[in-house]
């Protein structure tokens, strides 16, 4: 069956979520993945948006994390001080989704600047809540398409902490969360090595070779001795994504 990279990534991300998980989610593919999980194996997933909407069940695809559809019919609306202190810093968030302009060898994410901070060639939006999500969510999932510019050996600016910062391992910073344990790309899945914290190739999508993945990463990517092969989206997953969750292809672009 034919499917796009976005559809594959959304399906793989959905399968990473367990029923009952409390998920800190943004818009786009992560939002699609959460709603796909809710519609399949995780009906009791609780979605929390940094805007303060808890347990949202939007009647339309939200176009921003502050969409009014996330409020109407939600379980709770709280102030952002509560979102960050009582939910996130409190340790109530099991999974946090993050993306980024750059993701490096150690899972550090850059959403701040390309180039020098004081005189950037590209000024990116900045952290938003990503810095604290990467520190506090029990597990962080990164969703990003492969490419040497997106996956450099080292990011230009560390906005969200990965597993090693300027040579110091994450453990030294005593962060509550495990950090980015899984990176869902358009060709396969990278995982942080339990010991070193370095991102390594753990699973391939159907018909993808290791060299194809390596071509999209800016450092000598190591691979697990046995690579999992990930099943393609099921007919049910594709039907939900295409007909129910994003019929207008707002986020399922390619």
């Amino acid at each position, binding site marked *: 069956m034919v499917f796009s990279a976005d559809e594959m990534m959304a399906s793989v991300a959905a399968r990473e979520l367990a029923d009952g998980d409390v998920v800190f989610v943004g*818009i786009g593919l992560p939002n699609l993945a959460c709603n796909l999980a809710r519609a399949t194996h995780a009906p009791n997933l609780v979605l929390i948006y*940094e*805007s*303060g*909407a808890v347990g949202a069940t939007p009647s339309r695809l939200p*176009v*921003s*994390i*502050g*969409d*009014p559809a996330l*409020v*109407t019919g939600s379980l709770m*609306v*709280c*102030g*952002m*001080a509560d979102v*960050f202190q009582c939910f*996130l*810093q409190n340790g109530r968030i099991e999974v946090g989704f993050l993306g980024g302009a750059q993701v490096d060898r150690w899972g550090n994410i850059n959403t*701040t600047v390309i180039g020098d*901070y*004081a*005189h*950037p*060639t*590209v*000024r990116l*939006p*900045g*952290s*938003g*809540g*990503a*810095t*604290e999500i990467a*520190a*506090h969510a029990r597990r962080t999932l990164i969703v990003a398409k492969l490419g040497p510019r997106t996956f450099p050996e080292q990011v230009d*600016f*560390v*906005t*969200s*902490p*990965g597993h090693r*910062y300027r040579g*110091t391992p*994450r453990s030294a*910073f*005593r*962060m*509550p969360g495990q950090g980015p344990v899984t990176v869902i790309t358009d060709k396969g899945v990278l995982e942080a090595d339990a010991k070193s914290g370095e991102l390594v190739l753990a699973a391939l999508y159907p018909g993808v070779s290791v060299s194809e993945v390596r071509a999209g990463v800016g450092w000598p990517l190591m691979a697990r001795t046995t690579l999992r092969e990930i099943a393609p989206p099921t007919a049910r997953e594709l039907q939900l994504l295409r007909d129910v969750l994003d019929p207008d292809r707002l986020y399922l672009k390619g």
Partner: protein
Amino acid sequence: MTDSASKVLSMHDAIARYVHDGDTVVIEGFTHLICFAAGHEIIRQRRRDLTLARLTPDLIYDQMIAAGCARKLIFSWAGNPGVGSLHAFRRATEGAAPSLELEEYSHFGMVARFSAGAARLPFWTMRDYAGTDLPRANPAIKNVVCPYTGEQLATVPALNPDVTIIHAQRADAAGNTQIWGLVGVQKEAAFASQRVIVVVEELVDTAVIRADPNRTLIPGVIVSGVVVEPWGAHPSYAQGFYDRDNEFYVGWEKISRDPARLTGYLDEFVLGVEDRSGYLARHPGLVERLRASQQVCAGVNYGF
């Protein structure tokens, strides 16, 4: 100071009286209830050297930056939500000679700065920023040692704006203000501020406020002025009044990319109109397109 003394005035007079050149100005509201009407009046009155602070500068600060109102920006996420970039912001911050000074935090850091300001404490403590470059980019992010555990925690300094502008669904003439839907960090920003301007969709009798006191987010005792400006948050939204104008946000990409088009936009829709009613007159069909549906919740019993 009270619920019987009226603080109602026009947007023109509110900005003229409470927003001055060089002020630190906060127009808060996370996606919801962003007071574009106040930002436009600040542009019309040609305020200069402002330090603009809010979590998400959004289109309104992109417009104020383009109009030359801002000297400095204090923020945590500067994008066009769900669309892409704020190009006036980017032009002012990229390359060899940025013209806009930046002071940058994460969302939590900005929330913490307002929380400290509201509590009139000099700082707020967080478990954040370890293993990131943010403290190097912003020396105002410091550390404190816990007097109980000895562990090191991050701190941010209090933010106490000169003036905070809050858009709300309703308030009485004394500024007792009720908001529902997303409440963001408005309460903290208002209590942190020296002056507070409340802009409402609806001016209501104090009896309406008193009928449901748990809905009051901002008490009149901290409010300087009340402006009645229906649709004043467009193109952002007001839960229960009108939807977010996503088409406008999407369309801003093209406008803000081109400095000439951005200037043209400001000339036509901001400088070219007298006030909000003039702005609305230039958006025919807006009200019909965005007016909210009715999903009214049940009341609760305050009897005893």
